[in-house]
């Protein structure tokens, strides 16, 4: 199990399209991925779940990954958030 916290800094936060990009990557891994925004959390492989977290720009997301490929998953997701969900 690995965990990390990261602020999202794309233009308008984890909206539906950004959530879609997140899921595209998350779904490639076997590990279970859970995304926390404060008290709320969602399955990292669900677009609707992620979108319903209502994570605005600047929100700090805690991401917990548990499974055989958790290391790779962490690296890939960190990169996605750093790249601002390829928005620009």
């Amino acid at each position, binding site marked *: 199990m690995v965990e990390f916290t990261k602020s999202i800094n794309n*233009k308008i936060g984890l909206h539906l399209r950004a959530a879609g990009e997140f899921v595209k990557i998350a779904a490639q891994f076997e590990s279970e991925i859970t995304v926390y925004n404060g008290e709320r959390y969602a399955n990292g492989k669900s677009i609707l779940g992620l979108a319903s977290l209502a994570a605005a720009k600047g929100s700090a997301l805690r991401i917990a990954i548990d499974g055989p490929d958790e290391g790779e998953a962490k690296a890939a997701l960190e990169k996605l958030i750093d790249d601002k969900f390829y928005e620009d």
Partner: protein
Amino acid sequence: MRSNRLRKIGNGPKNGLNGPPREKREIRKNGISASPGIVIGKAFLKDSELLVVPTTKIEESQVEQEIEKFLLVLSETKKGLLKLRTNIADRMGDDHARIFDAHLMILEDVMVVEDTVALVRKERLNAAAAFQRVVNRVMTSFDKIEDDYLKDRYVDIKDVKRRVLRNLLGRSKGTIDRPTEPSIIVAHDLSPSDTAQFDRRTTLAYATDLGGSTSHTAILARSQGVPAVVGLEDLFGRVETGDAIVVDGNTGTVVVNPDPGTIADYQAEIKRFKELEDQLLTLTHYPAVTLDDKEFSLCANVDMPEEVASVLEYGGQGVGLFRTEYFFISQEQLPSEDDQYKMYRMVAEKLDGRPVTIRTIDIGGDKIVGYLNRSAELNPFMGWRGIRFCLTRKDIFKTQLRAIYRASAHGNIKIMFPMIVQIEEVTKAKEICAEVRQELKKDRFAFNEDVEIGIMIETPSAVAMAEALAKEVDFFSIGTNDLIQYTLAVDRGNSKISHLYQNLHPSIIRFLKKTIEAAHKRKIHVGICGEICGDPMSVLVLIGLGVDEFSASPNMMPEIKRIIRSVTYDECKSLVRRVMRYRTTSEIEREIEDFLKARVPSVREIERTPR
């Protein structure tokens, strides 16, 4: 006109369209006229079946079976949607079909699937109730989110929910979600996926609670040539499937359970409208020329390639305004250069050498596109829209220009920029056009080097600068809807002040005159596009002002032509000279109305809008 009689409450015998006879009162609702024409028919309520989802406890032994059934239904719903998607892609093009991608995404969502399965397993809930609970939870959480795109998906989520529930409850065969006989579609709101499914042959008209004149339903109805009234607020709750209903797309009125008197009135109106149309259609092959041989160009405003057929049918000489917003709005993402190229090319080819003026996207104002990550503006009509948007999102602008230029190899295409306020916007936009031409040359694409470039005159500042602007461009098109709104500072949608929105306000006539004179002084072509073309009195003024081109909805063109063919240019010029002396709209209107009655009696007599 017939208002007194219409407002009476009927107590005569009702034709038992819907089960046992009930006392039904006539209800009149006014909305926004979205597509012209009048139809009397039976209502078909989209969404009429209230899905009652029973909540039951299932036996422990049934749990796995219930889950299996749920997964099977999901995959069958998905199959059905994919089939529908292919179907619509074949019939209406891939862009229309893309609306189903959001549906499919929801069906495949792990959270929805897993949470439903978990509820069935843990609480031994039946799958339908579990699924409903999960989806409702998602929708509730979406309520709090400021994301225009997400809000637009609301209808999609509801749609998918309904499909799955219907299949789960095993009623998919017995229930219909589209009419089997010609009906008037009544809905709270229609998603593109709803409208795409209706068979044109059984769709008499649309009436919806939500929407404006540029909403999806409005545009589609116009392209299908069926009447529509939108923005009816609470009609849906007042109608039942099978109720008799009148949709008057000319005035934006809907009458539910019309009295026999009302029906007779509307039947007469339909007959008159039909006669007028037939009469006008006989003019299709004649030119738009006055009695003293002054010829005007008569073109159409369109939103979709599908509309080009009706442009030709109504005798249009081309497309004076091809709005590209609809294409952008109806997509899930920005349309690619190739997608745009194909569409512009299709329009140009269908017009077969006749001109088409493509207006670069005027996103903003009332047309917000979710995927562009735009946040709502406090004052969108004065906000980031038109050319302002294009010059800051040069990437989007250039993609569109590349597509337009490439399509120019296949027809008579012109480019037009909206919302010009200052000269620099024109010079910058032209520079970008030059860049695009350079790049296309380098990329070895064929295109027309001399595509005409014009601008919309729709702001008071553009009118003030008209002469200077005329030096920069090949043509003007006066966009009266915005010009009037900006000049008179009136929002037509605001019922408290909408009476102040006046086509024939003395300031508007002066602005039109100044713009047309500036264009002619610089020897450039000047057209008019806007709803003002649908007003016979304004048309007379525009003839007198010597505008070169009228561009209006396809079905308005014959009437404009009829007016042009009934008068002389000379008498309209002197009419304009006379009205220029008046200081008030009412004096101007009186003068023109007298002229209209005397010179174009038949148009006046069959004028459709009761005042």
